[in-house]
């Protein structure tokens, strides 16, 4: 009588037997550590890495979140072990979702956190090893054509405390001309609030 879960079998396996959970942070002696997420929204992730010769030798994690948050962080930690930093830097939410055999639409934001936590950990490693020049800003995408406002501007506004569309408009002036970018902007507001909100 076992009916299908909302999740794939691969995801279910990673949920039932998560790999590489960080048990003793002090003993792990991380070379880089990154945390993202927001408990109020129900997901928070922390990723730690060990780096040797520019390759991720080990990756462990902790997460507060739902089944797909647990499984996607577990999958991420498996995937990036043995990866060159430059390669690991480019792991996208979609890569993780594909590896997991797909994710329900409304759950994609959970795996978005995994890759961001990893990138934060790599950035932290770059900082600790005096390689700040390797920290990459993701290319900005224009959201509001009229006022030339990018996703990075929206991200910055949310980091500065904008939480509603109106506050976002006040901060960035987006959507104050034709208004066509409203849906897109609200999606991003939602996403970034999830990442940086309190």
């Amino acid at each position, binding site marked *: 009588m076992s009916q299908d879960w909302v999740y794939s079998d691969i995801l279910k396996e990673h949920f039932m037997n998560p790999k590489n959970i960080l048990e003793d942070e002090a003993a792990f002696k991380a070379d880089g550590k990154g945390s993202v997420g927001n408990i109020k929204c129900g997901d928070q992730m922390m990723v730690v890495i060990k780096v040797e010769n520019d390759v991720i030798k080990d990756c462990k994690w902790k997460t507060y979140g*739902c089944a797909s948050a647990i499984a996607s962080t577990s999958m991420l930690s498996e995937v990036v072990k043995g990866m060159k930093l430059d390669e690991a830097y480019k792991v996208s939410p979609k890569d993780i979702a594909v590896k997991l055999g797909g994710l329900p639409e409304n759950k994609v934001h959970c795996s978005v956190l995994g890759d961001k936590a990893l990138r934060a950990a790599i950035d932290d490693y770059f900082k600790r090893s005096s390689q700040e020049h390797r920290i990459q800003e993701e290319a900005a995408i224009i959201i509001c054509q009229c006022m030339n406002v990018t996703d990075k501007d929206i991200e910055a506004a949310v980091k500065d405390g904008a939480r509603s569309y109106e506050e976002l408009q006040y901060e960035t002036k987006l959507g104050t001309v034709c208004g066509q970018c409203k849906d897109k902007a609200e999606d991003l507001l939602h996403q970034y*609030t999830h990442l940086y909100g309190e």
Partner: protein
Amino acid sequence: MADRKVYMDYNATTPLHPEVQKSLIDNFAYFGNPSSMHEPGRAARHLIEESRVEIARFIGASPEEIVFVGSGSEANNTVLNLAKCGGPLCRGLSPNNREIVTTSIEHPCVLDTSRCFQRQGSTAHFIKVDRYGKVDIQELEDSINDSTAIVSVMFANNEIGTIQNLKEIAAMVRNKKALFHTDAVQALGKVPFNVKDLDVDYLSLSAHKIYGPKGIGALYIRKGAPFCPFIHGGHQETGRRAGTENSFGIYGFGKAVEVLSREMDENNQRIRGLRDKLKAGIIESIPDIHLNGHPEDVVPNTLNVSFMGAEGEAILLYMDLAGIFVSTGSACASGSLDPSHVLLATGLDAEYAHGSIRFSLGRENTEEDVDYVLQQLPPIIERIRKMSTVYQGGKK
């Protein structure tokens, strides 16, 4: 997959009572349209009216005060719709009465309907509750004015089980000369009540929470209370709800209530004992929890607990793997970013609300079920907490 299956989600829905199932199978033969004058029609009509009498008797109403509808949600929508209806040809309310006064912990079918009216230009007040989920009666009273159409306060909450001081609230609303509705879907079968004693104008019921079939609800409409149909069309239900009756649903609803009248008290006493045992066991075996809902004024079958540092969907699914079926107020399970509006309304922190689990017990549960849950749950919580960024041995 676990061998043992423990269903503890009776507030979501219940299995059919074996007696209801048997009677339904017997009565599936009565297929006639209850509006037809011939013999098959009359046979169906007879069974429907028997059910109506049964339900009316159980809640202390007259049979003509009971209207069958498609669900508890439809019953609630029908009453709130009175706030929108009106006019010289309507048997509803005066066009001047356009405001809804309700609470912040209602079922979404009341909250979203009220918000929809707001978008259409009406006013809705959502009264706050205290940390146990009890409505602020003073704020409720202060929100009632000459423009009020309907005051709607749920009898017992589906998530935390808190029972409102309904008689006191109904008397206050009566005194303020407003109309009073209560959503009694979760109270039916768990709290004994009588509509005349409560003195309410409208009351919503549903069959599938009391071991009856799904897709059938009922609305009590006090004789003389303003009314306007929500679904227009045929003359069914004396013109109060159009559409050919869900006759099988109605037969099953009547039977479920008849069984309830025999078994309710004994079942509730036993279920309360199991719930209390579960509660004591969880308190004893799991640290850093928060009990949600009122400590005393709570339906006998419901226990809502938040586990700090553990997210609800993860708990639910690990329990599912262990064969235990419960529900959660976590956002993840609902696909939104916000956890349970009920728990937030009680002032609970979002992180505790995300980690909430509702156990709602029922007549099939046994001592062994509770023992099994108490054996399975603590290691599940411990396991999730071990991988949690939030939980570090009792401290954040």
